[in-house]
Structures are given as structure tokens and as C-alpha cells.
């Protein structure tokens, strides 16, 4: 079809549409109003079955027999918080686990995983190293044998370490291409002081990565791989007895390290300086990335339910105030939101959006107006009701897949919390009042002590930002280091 035919055909179809068929003419009185609701279903929490091997490995199983799939997560407490003076060591070591293990080199291992129709992912977060396995029921045992090789018999061959180190160095450079990633790295570097475990990038920087070698990786793993700190979470088409027997066979010989890594130290509370603006230059950028926040709250805080509900209303859902105003009313962005990173130590609170460059100052003003408004004026009864329902009923969809159940169970395990935390938090959310929500905002949302990071075209956006008078502005580079401003 040539161009003119394509458009002409469509125009003809449009012209041929008889006006009488317009939906406007239809009448529908019987169903014009919103229907009433039937009774709400109740969340039935999956039951967790537990066991423990003699070497300390904890086992948690949630049988789900609807589909012939099994998901397993082996979690070892520790993670990047134990990097010490080598940022990126835990994540790099975890990524190296499946680059050759047991009798298989990196290729043979990847090929075998693919042959089994399985997935095998190794990685680390701030608080744990994880080895995740997903497999059809019928190949799960073979897939778990590969996971055991990866955990107990990783090769860490010099050539493999060198290759993966090169890939990671290039990946770190590539982060500069993504303004959102740059904003995140600079934000963490500014919000948490040097020496705090969350200050450095999770994956390290160029210098710390260049210093990684096979001996260092081997040493870290020999001390981190401790069965007494490990939990094997398995969900799907299995029974506890099956998992226990399999774990005994595959992991029963796993011995505690001679000199285990120390338990992570609790750092001093991160300081909260008066609000300041950090500008990172991206000349010619079509948008500005805005990230605003401060150190947040520990997941173990008794105020967790109130903070969750407060944030749902502020920026934690599509209908939240920030998204509704910045996107649906103003059209400055494709999406705006806010959230707390829930970790054992207080993770960051972060409100963010990518906005049209010439709306950077206007957007920033709205963010701060909304932070103050929820503190000063609280929330409405309707917002409270909607936010509560969003969180409570939303939990019904959180346990649909084997991966979701394993994920929920795993992240609570890392926090040292049982799965029953979820229903008790939901019950607490049901009881919250508008006053509770306002108190949470006043206590945990402090716009006088926020760090603002903006990645954008400084020449265009700086005057407008400074005119808001939120705080002093300074220019930093992509690593958060000072540059002349």
C-alpha cells in the first residue's frame, strides 16, 4: 500500500460513519450509576512449614500445588552491608557464583540451566546474598543441584573474574547514560555520609571494581557462605518432606566458615542537614530528573503501618497527590511518586519525577507544597478510606504466583520478621485514623531537611530553582563530587 492509499482508506471509513450511530444518542438509565459491591473476600495467608538442618540451614516451605512450578530462594544474611572498604564486593561475588561451579564452567552451567527450562539467578542486596531458582516441577531437583554447586563449589577462576570485572566496569560507565540512574547514585552519596553502608553504590564504583580479584572474591565467599545465616525458601508444587530430604542431600555437608564475617555493625544515624539542592549537569536534556529525600525509617518501626498509609496518599499510588497534581492536573511528567526503602537499617525516603525541563522549578515547588500540606492539614476521610482499601485489598493479589510468595517470605526473612507480620500490619492499617496519618507525616516527612538532586540542563533550570528559596544550590558531578559552581 502506498502512503496516499493508506491515509485515504482511513479517511473514507471515517466519512462513511453515519452520524445516527453515535454513542451519544444511546440511553442507558438502568446502569448509569456505580453498582453496589458484594462482600469483600478475605486474605488467607499461606501457611509456612519450617525445618532446620543440623548445620543451621533454615528451611521454609509454602506448598502451592496449582501449577507444576517450584521457586526457591537461598538467602544468606549479610550482603553489601558487609562490603567494608570494598564497595561492590558482595554483589560482584554473588554475580560470580554462577560463572562456573562444580564440574561445569560458565558456559556448561548456563547451558544446563537452559536445558532444564529453569532460571538461576545469583545476586546480593544490602542485607543478603540470594540464589534464586525457578523450575518446572519435573526438573526442580536437577536445578537445585546446580544451585548447590553454585553455593558450595563456585570456581571463581581468574579468567572468569577478569571477564566479569571488565563487563562490570563498562556497566558502571554506562550508568552515566541514564539520568535516572545518575540521580539515584548522587542521591545516595549525598543523603548517607561517607562510611555509612548506603553511601557507596551497591555495585561499587570504577576504582573499587578495578581492584576486585579472584583471591578477594574467594576470601569473601569463604567467610560469607555460612549455613547458620542461611534460609532456603521454597514455594510451589512441593512438600516439606521433599524439600527437607533434598536440602539434606545437597546442603547437609555445608560447613560453617572457620572465620565467618562479623555481624553487620549498626552505623551512627545519618545526619539530616538543612534542605539543599544538588545540581548535576546534563546539557541539552529533554527532561530534568528530580529526586528528593532523606534517611527514612527502619522496617521494624512500630509506625510502619501509619507511614505506609501516609505515603500511599502522598505519592505511593497512581491516585496519590503527587501523581495526580504533577501528571493528571499539570501534565509536567509521565509519573511522579514517593516511597520508603524498607530495610533493617533506615533506608532512604525518596520522592521523584522526570519532568519537562521548563517545568523543573514549578514541579519542585509543588513537591514541597505537598510535603507541607500533608503535615499541616493532614488527609481527608475519603483519602484515608481509599488508601486503607488500597493496601488491605491489594494484599489479595500479592500471593498469586510462586515467585510472589517466595519474594514476600524472603524479604521478611531478611528483616527477621515472620509472614504473620503482613496480616497484623493490615489489621493495624484498618484501625488508623486521619490523625494517625498526619502524625506520621509530621514525624517522618521533614521538608526542612531534605536533599534535592536534579539531573538536567543546569543553564536552563538553575535560575528558576534558586528563585524558590528552598535552600542553597551547588553543582556536583556524576559521582556526587563537588565541581566549581
Amino acid at each position: 500500500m502506498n502512503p496516499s492509499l493508506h491515509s485515504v482508506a482511513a479517511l473514507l471509513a471515517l466519512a462513511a460513519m453515519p452520524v445516527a450511530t453515535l454513542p451519544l444518542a444511546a440511553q442507558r438509565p438502568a446502569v448509569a450509576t456505580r453498582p453496589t459491591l458484594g462482600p469483600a473476600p478475605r486474605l488467607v495467608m499461606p501457611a509456612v512449614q519450617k525445618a532446620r538442618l543440623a548445620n543451621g540451614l533454615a528451611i521454609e516451605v509454602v506448598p502451592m500445588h496449582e501449577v507444576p512450578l517450584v521457586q526457591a530462594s537461598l538467602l544468606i544474611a549479610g550482603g553489601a552491608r558487609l562490603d567494608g572498604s570494598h564497595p561492590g564486593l558482595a554483589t560482584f561475588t554473588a554475580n560470580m557464583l554462577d560463572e562456573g561451579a562444580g564440574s561445569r564452567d560458565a558456559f556448561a552451567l548456563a547451558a544446563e540451566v537452559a536445558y532444564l527450562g529453569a532460571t538461576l539467578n545469583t545476586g546480593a542486596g544490602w542485607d543478603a546474598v540470594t540464589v534464586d531458582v525457578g523450575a518446572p516441577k519435573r526438573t526442580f531437583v536437577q536445578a537445585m543441584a546446580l544451585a548447590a554447586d553454585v553455593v558450595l563449589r563456585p570456581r571463581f577462576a581468574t579468567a572468569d573474574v577478569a571477564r566479569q570485572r571488565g563487563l562490570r566496569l563498562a556497566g558502571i560507565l554506562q550508568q552515566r547514560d541514564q539520568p535516572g540512574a545518575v540521580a539515584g547514585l548522587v542521591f545516595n552519596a549525598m543523603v548517607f555520609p561517607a562510611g555509612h553502608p548506603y553511601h557507596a553504590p551497591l555495585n561499587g564504583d570504577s576504582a573499587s571494581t578495578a581492584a576486585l580479584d579472584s583471591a578477594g572474591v574467594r576470601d569473601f565467599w569463604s567467610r560469607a557462605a555460612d549455613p547458620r545465616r542461611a534460609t532456603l525458601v521454597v514455594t510451589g508444587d512441593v512438600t516439606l518432606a521433599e524439600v527437607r530430604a533434598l536440602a539434606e542431600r545437597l546442603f547437609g555437608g555445608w560447613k560453617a566458615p572457620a572465620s565467618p564475617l562479623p555481624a553487620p555493625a549498626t552505623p551512627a544515624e545519618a545526619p539530616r542537614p538543612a534542605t539543599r539542592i544538588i545540581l548535576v549537569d546534563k546539557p541539552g536534556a529533554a527532561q530534568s530528573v528530580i529526586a528528593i529525600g532523606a534517611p527514612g525509617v527502619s522496617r521494624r518501626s512500630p509506625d510502619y503501618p501509619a507511614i505506609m498509609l501516609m505515603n500511599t496518599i502522598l505519592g505511593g499510588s497512581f491516585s496519590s497527590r503527587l501523581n495526580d497534581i504533577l501528571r493528571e492536573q499539570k501534565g509536567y511528567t509521565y509519573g511522579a511518586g514517593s516511597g520508603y526503602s524498607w530495610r533493617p537499617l533506615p533506608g532512604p525516603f525518596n520522592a521523584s519525577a522526570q519532568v519537562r525541563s521548563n517545568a523543573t522549578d514549578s514541579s519542585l515547588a509543588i513537591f514541597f507544597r505537598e510535603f507541607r500540606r500533608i503535615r499541616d492539614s493532614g488527609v481527608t476521610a475519603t483519602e484515608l478510606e481509599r488508601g486503607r482499601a488500597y493496601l488491605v485489598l491489594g494484599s489479595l493479589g500479592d500471593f498469586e504466583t510462586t515467585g510472589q510468595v517466595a519474594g514476600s517470605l524472603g524479604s521478611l526473612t531478611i528483616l527477621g520478621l515472620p509472614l504473620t507480620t503482613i496480616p497484623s500490619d493490615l489489621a493495624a492499617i484498618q484501625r488508623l485514623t486521619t490523625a494517625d496519618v498526619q502524625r506520621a507525616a509530621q514525624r517522618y516527612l521533614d521538608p526542612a531537611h531534605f536533599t534535592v538532586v536534579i539531573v538536567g540542563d543546569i543553564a536552563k533550570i538553575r535560575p528558576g530553582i534558586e528563585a524558590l528559596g528552598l535552600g542553597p544550590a551547588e553543582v556536583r558531578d556524576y559521582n556526587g563530587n563537588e565541581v566549581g559552581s
Partner: protein
Amino acid sequence: MRDGRTEGRMGGRMLRGGMRIVACGALFSALPTFRPSACALHAQALHVATDTFTLSNGLKVAVHEDHSAPLVAVNLWYHVGSGREVAGRSGFAHLFEHMMFQGSKDVEKGGHFGVVQEAGGTLNGSTNSDRTNYYEMVPSNYLEQVLWLEADRMGYLLDAFSQAKLDNQRDVVKNERRQNYENAPYGLASIRLGEMLYPESHPYHAPTIGYQADLTAASPEDVAGFFRQWYVPNNASLVIAGDVKPAEVRRLVTRYFGDIPAGQPAPAVKPIPVTLQADRRDVMEDRVTLARLSLVWPTVERWNADEDALDIFGSILGQGRSSRLYQRLVYREQTAQSASAGQGSRPQAGQFQVTVMAREGASLSQLEREVYEEIARLADEGPTAEEMARARNGNEARSVYQLQTLLGKADRINQYLTERGTPDMFNEELAHYAAVTPADVQRVARTYIRNHPHIILSVVPNGHRELAAQAPEVHP
């Protein structure tokens, strides 16, 4: 109408509300010493039991019962995507999708999000070149409310239309374009590839996100015309999956959608094959650290008999760390940061794409030559039995994973209903994939890829055009 294949013929056990799995178990339990056999490679059959019916206004409906959780997914497809846009209005189908969340006659602006979020549910819509879908997942007692929401905007969107809403969502979509294309590394390259491969007259030439100038030009008349032409019940299909009873669903769907008038029938969609007479080579500069090479061949559309063999060819060549390109370029020679290959099939045309991200200092020209070498080797020597098994087992596992979620199942059922007129092609698809032979893989490689004209696009860091892949004197 009751689908004839819902009653068990395979004797497998029921799971997740009627998905039927028949295991060929003994063979797999013998793994890994026992290597691929015919049955091990095609070890299970899937069935998703579905009731289908059509309202008098032409709305096609499929209902799938799954009582494993108190949830229901509603998934509505309109058979219009960016491929049906008129010249000068690229991006309009997607912009229109945004307008569908701006309220309708009896639903206030933001009301769709309000109702669904109050239910703790999830909702969204998406637009591609061929269809626009809208979906919600909510507790099952919210089914009637969601049907009311969907019916109100199918029948009565224009009652609540305003210029201000259009202007607002036009801004939102322009921001979406900035965020995902203009301000994103390699973002504009994906648009350029479509422009190079498909002629201007082809439905897949322009990107679904559209061009800024065309978004600016979109008018209220465009909204009304598009709605009347395409958003009619006889150009839509609705799938409801979850904790529901089919008779009750039929009653509710009839109540809410039954009196929406039919519109003009949409013209049928037919494949529009693309051929290139010669290679087309281009270079783009971008704010990127690493140079990237993309090679794209025109191949076959969705449901073409050669689609699965091309998919397996792509899988062996460039899916995952055990693939040939990854092994050679990323692991052995270490000249690439990543390498991938795959067949992408859409209803009107398909393409085979190879993407290689070069390490710093590596030559795109050399990487291009090496990709051709690997293509030639796989086409000439054929895949190993082991490679075939990996591709098939991976496909089978992905199929099962997709059936884990109600939304995943509902969307797949709607795709079958739309493209094949029947809701359950799960088993047929798996069987077709499993029947592909190594000779088929070699044949499609020779028929469509090896020695065939294609697109070569280099994306290089700003100011470094010298890094672009140069035309070799001869290529296979």
C-alpha cells in the same frame, strides 16, 4: 457457546481452574543422564478451559474460571493500534488510550483509577501497533464495578470529553516520549529501525509513541472520529478470568455492554510482507558510552508456519548466556558487553533482530562480520540436539509461567481470540514449536536471514561516527 475442547481428553490433572497439564514424567525424571527424546522435549499439554459467546452488538466474550484465589482479571482488547493511524497523526492510538482514563459519562476524571485502587486492584492499558488493551485485576466482588467502568467508556466516552483533558494527556504523552525515547540512551534508535525497515505506507513504519509534531496536531475532532470508528463493540473482545461463574458473567456483561450500539465493521487485517532489495545502512549519534550495532531482517508475520523455526534460530543464536553470540562475543573474545538475537512477530509483519553492544575499543565492523559468521555457521551446520532441547524446554517453561497469573492468562486468551478466533491455542502452539526440526531451523536461516538484505544501524557516542560499522567488501 461452550468451547468443545474443555472436557478432558488427555486425562491429566486439573490445575488452576481448568488448566490441564499432562506430564510425560518418567522421561524427565531420568534426566540428566537420559538426553532429549521426542517426549521429553514435548512433555506437557496445556488447556485453558474457556466459555465464549458473542453479544448481538458483536462484542466477543471469553470467560475462564479459576477459583484458586478470590480475584478476577478483566482484559479488554480494541482491535486498533498505531498501525491504523492516518498520516500526520502518529501516536494517536496511544494518546487515545490515555484519554480512556479521563472519565466518561458516569465516571469522573480519575474515576477508573479511583475505583480500582479502592479495590486494591491493578489496572493499566497498553497500545502497540496492532491493538490497544485495558485490564484490571480486582477482588472478585468488584467484577460488576469494573464491567461498569469499561462499558461506560466504551459507550459514553465522548460525553465527558474536554479540550483541557486532551491538552493534559497530550503533555503527559510528550513527557512519556521524552522519558523513554529522547532522554533515554539508544531510545531514538528503536524508532529509526522501524522507519528504515518498513516503507512509509506500512502500518509499522511510524513508532507507536508517535512524533512530537503529530501529537501537537491531535484535535478534539480526531478523538471523536477515532472513537466512533474503532471503539465499537464489534471491534473489541473481552476476557474475564478468575473466581467467577460463567452464567453470572454472561448476565453482567449483557447488562452493561448489551445496549452499546455496533459501529461500522473494521476492515480485516492482512499480513503486509516487507522485502528489501539491498542492505540499508545508517548511523546515529547519541549520548552514550558504548557503541551499539543493530541488524534487522524482514521475516514472517505472527502465525506464519516459519515463525517458530525463526524463534528457535534466534534462541540458539542469541538468547541467554549459553547462546552462540554471547559465548563468542561476550565470553570468549570479550569484544561485546551484551549480544542478543530474536524473532519478533506481529500480525502484519515480522522481523529478526540482532543487537550487539560493543565494549570500548571494539570495532562494530568486526562485530558485524562475526555475527554473519555465526549466522552462516548455524545455517550451514545446523543446531545441535542439545541446542534444540534448550530452546524448546525454555519455551515450554515460559508458557507455564505465563499461566501463573490471571492477567497473563487473560491477555493470552484474548490474543488467541483476536488472532485465531478461538480462545485456547495453548496446546497447539506448544505442539507446533516442539515439532520444529533442526532442518527447519537451517531452512529458515537460509530463506530469510543468510545472504538476505537487511538493516544495519550503528549508534555511536556523539562525535564518533568513525566507530560506525562500515560496509564490508563482501558479506555472506
